[in-house]
C-alpha cells in the first residue's frame, strides 16, 4: 500500500435510477473515469447488504462505494 | 425470659423497654470495619456508650464487605452497648438467615432490623450474585413466626430455646411511589415489625406528610417509629446526597446553610472549613430533631453519623436527650 504507484481497486454499487444512470450518461458524453473503479448495478442502493460489502473486501478490493 | 414474657415484653431488649415506657428513644449507627480488628468496633462503641439506647450494626452496608454484623454486635456488647443487628436479604437465603438468627440470639442479641439491602452493584463486589430469597416483608414475618409461633419458616418447630427478637424494619418516606409508602409500612407492621427506622430525613415537610398518612392509618399505635437523622459533613456531601443518592431528598435550604457555613473562611484553611461545616451539620441535626419530635407518631430518632460517631453525643446532648433513661 506504500507503493507510490498504488492504485486502489474500488467497487461501486450504483443505484439503477441515479448513480448508474449518471455513469451511463457520463459514458455517453465520453467523460472518462478511472478504470480501477468497477461498477455493479443494483436496483436500489438500499439493496446492498453488509455481507456483499464484506465479500468484496474478501475478494481483494480496497474500497467500496455505495452510490444512490 | 419467662419473666420478660410475664411483663409482656416481646424480647426484653433495652430498646423495647425504653419505647414501651414511653420515652423518646435514641438509636445510633455503628459501621463495622473493612478489616478484622476488634478495636475498630470497641473504639466506636466507647464513643457511643451512654448516648444511645441501642446501636445499629450495619450488615455489609452499601454492599461493601465488612465485619459481620453479629460478630461486631458481640464486640459492641462487651463494651456495654445494646446492638440492633441489621440483616439484609441480599446476601443470605432463608436457611442462612435463620441459622444466623439462632446464633445471634444465643450470643445475646435482642434487636433485629430487617432490610432488603442495597444492590450489590453499589459495592465492592458488583459482579456478585445476589440472593433475595426473601424480601424484607417476608423476613419480618419469618422472624416474628420464629418468636411467636416457635417455628422455622418451613413450619418445623424450633427445638428448645426460641429466638425472641424485637423486630425492626426500615421505611423510606422519600422513595417513590410516595402513595404506596404508607401502605408498604402497613405491610411491614402487619408482617410483625415492632419498630421502624426511617431513611435519613432532610425534607421535613415531606416526612410530615408521610407521618400524617401513617397516623391516619393508625400505624403509629401499632409500631414505634424512629425518625432517621444525620449530621451533614460538608456542603459537598449535602449536594452529593441531594443529587446522587437514590431514595433521598435533601432540601436546598440545608445545602445552602452548609455553603454559608464556610463563608469568609479561606479555601486553604481546610481545618477551619471542616470545623465550621461540622458545627453547622450538628446544629442542623439538633434543630431537625427538635422539629421532628413535635410530629405526631414519632417515638424516637435514629442517628446515622456515618464514620463520624463523635457527632452523636453533641447531637443528643444538644437536643436535650441526655442522660438516657433506664427502665428496669
Amino acid at each position, binding site marked *: 500500500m506504500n507503493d507510490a504507484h498504488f492504485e486502489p481497486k474500488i467497487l461501486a454499487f450504483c443505484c439503477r435510477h441515479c448513480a448508474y444512470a449518471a455513469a451511463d450518461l457520463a459514458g455517453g458524453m465520453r467523460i472518462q473515469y478511472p478504470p480501477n473503479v468497477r461498477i455493479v448495478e443494483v436496483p436500489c442502493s438500499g439493496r446492498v*447488504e*453488509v*455481507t456483499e460489502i*464484506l*465479500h468484496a*473486501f*474478501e475478494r481483494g478490493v480496497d474500497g467500496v462505494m455505495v452510490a444512490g | 425470659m419467662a419473666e420478660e414474657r410475664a411483663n409482656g415484653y416481646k424480647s426484653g431488649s433495652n430498646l423495647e423497654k425504653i419505647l414501651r415506657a414511653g420515652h423518646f428513644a435514641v438509636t445510633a449507627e455503628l459501621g463495622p470495619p473493612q478489616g478484622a480488628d476488634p478495636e475498630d468496633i470497641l473504639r466506636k462503641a466507647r464513643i457511643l456508650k451512654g448516648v444511645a439506647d441501642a446501636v445499629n450494626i450495619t450488615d455489609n452496608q452499601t454492599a461493601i464487605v465488612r465485619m459481620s454484623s453479629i460478630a461486631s454486635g458481640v464486640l459492641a456488647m462487651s463494651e456495654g452497648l445494646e446492638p440492633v443487628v441489621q440483616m439484609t*436479604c*441480599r446476601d443470605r437465603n*432463608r436457611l442462612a438467615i435463620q441459622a444466623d438468627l439462632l446464633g445471634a440470639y444465643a450470643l445475646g442479641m435482642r434487636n433485629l432490623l430487617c432490610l*432488603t*439491602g*442495597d*444492590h450489590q*452493584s*453499589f459495592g465492592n463486589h458488583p459482579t456478585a450474585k*445476589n440472593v*433475595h*430469597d*426473601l*424480601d*424484607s*416483608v*417476608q423476613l419480618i*414475618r*419469618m422472624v416474628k413466626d420464629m418468636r411467636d409461633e416457635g417455628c422455622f*419458616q418451613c413450619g418445623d418447630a424450633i427445638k428448645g430455646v426460641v429466638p425472641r427478637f424485637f423486630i425492626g424494619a*426500615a*421505611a*423510606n418516606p*422519600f*422513595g*417513590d*411511589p410516595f*402513595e*404506596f409508602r404508607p*401502605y*408498604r409500612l*402497613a*405491610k411491614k407492621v*402487619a*408482617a410483625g415489625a415492632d419498630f421502624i427506622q426511617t*431513611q435519613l430525613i432532610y425534607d421535613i415537610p415531606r416526612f410530615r406528610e408521610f407521618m400524617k398518612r401513617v397516623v391516619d392509618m393508625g400505624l403509629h399505635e401499632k409500631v414505634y417509629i424512629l425518625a432517621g437523622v444525620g449530621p451533614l459533613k460538608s456542603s459537598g456531601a449535602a449536594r452529593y446526597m441531594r443529587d446522587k443518592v*437514590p*431514595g*433521598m431528598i435533601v432540601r436546598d435550604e440545608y445545602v445552602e446553610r452548609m455553603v454559608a457555613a464556610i463563608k469568609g473562611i479561606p479555601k486553604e484553611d481546610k481545618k477551619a472549613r471542616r470545623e465550621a461545616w461540622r458545627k453547622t451539620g450538628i446544629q442542623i441535626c439538633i434543630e431537625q430533631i427538635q422539629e421532628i419530635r413535635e410530629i405526631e407518631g414519632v417515638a424516637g430518632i435514629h442517628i446515622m453519623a456515618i464514620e463520624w460517631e463523635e457527632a452523636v453525643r453533641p447531637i443528643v446532648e444538644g437536643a436535650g436527650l441526655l442522660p438516657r433513661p433506664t427502665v428496669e
Partner: protein
Amino acid sequence: MIVAEQKPLAEIMELLGDARKVLVVGCGTCVTVCFAGGEKEVGILASALRMMSKLEGHPMEVDEATVQRQCEWEYIDPLEERLGEYDVVLSLACGIGVQAMNERFPDTLTLPGLNTTFLGLPEEQGVWEERCQACGDCILGLTAGICPIARCSKQLLNGPCGGSQNGVCEVDPDIPCAWQLIWERAVKLGRVDQLLEIQPPKDWSKSRDGGPRKIVREDLRLVEAE
C-alpha cells in the same frame, strides 16, 4: 422470545483457537428476529472470521449454514452429513441451540458465538428488554401484569425498596422501577388491594433453584404399541 447478542470477535477467535475449518451455524428463530444469529449475521461473522484469520496469517476456511430452529432435532439432523469435514462448529443460536448441536453430534464440538441474554421483547426497533425469568410459578396475576421477578433488580414481592425514586431503579436510571409500574397500573385498574396483601416467600423450587427442570406430558408422548 430469547434475546441474545454476539460475543466480541476477539473472544470468538480465541474460542476457535487453531481450528482450520469452521462451520458457522445460525438459527432462523429467536436470534434471527433479534439480529444476533440469523442467516445474515452468520454471513457477516463468517466473512469477518475469514478476513481476520487471513490478516493473522493463518487463513481459516469458514462455511455457513442456517437452520430454521437449532433447538429441535429434526431441524439440525440434516447437518449431520456435513459435519465430518469441520474441525469445529460455531453456533450462532442461543445456549439451547448450542447444546442441542453438542448433544446430537457428540463427535463434533460446537462452540457458542452468542451470549444468550434474556427472555424479552423488542421494546422498540433496536431495543430489547427482559420480561420473564421463567421462574416456573407465574405471579403476573398478582402484580398488575408486570413481573417483579424479571423487572425488579431485587425480585421483591411486597413492594418497592427504598431506592425507587422518580420512577427509576436505584441500580440504573435507565431501569424503570418495576414496583412503580405495578403500582401505577394497579391504581388504574382498581386493584390496589391486591398489593396490600403480604405475599409469602416464593417457592423457588419451581425455578432453577429446584435443579434443571423437565416437563413430561404423557398425553403427547409417542408410545409404541406393545
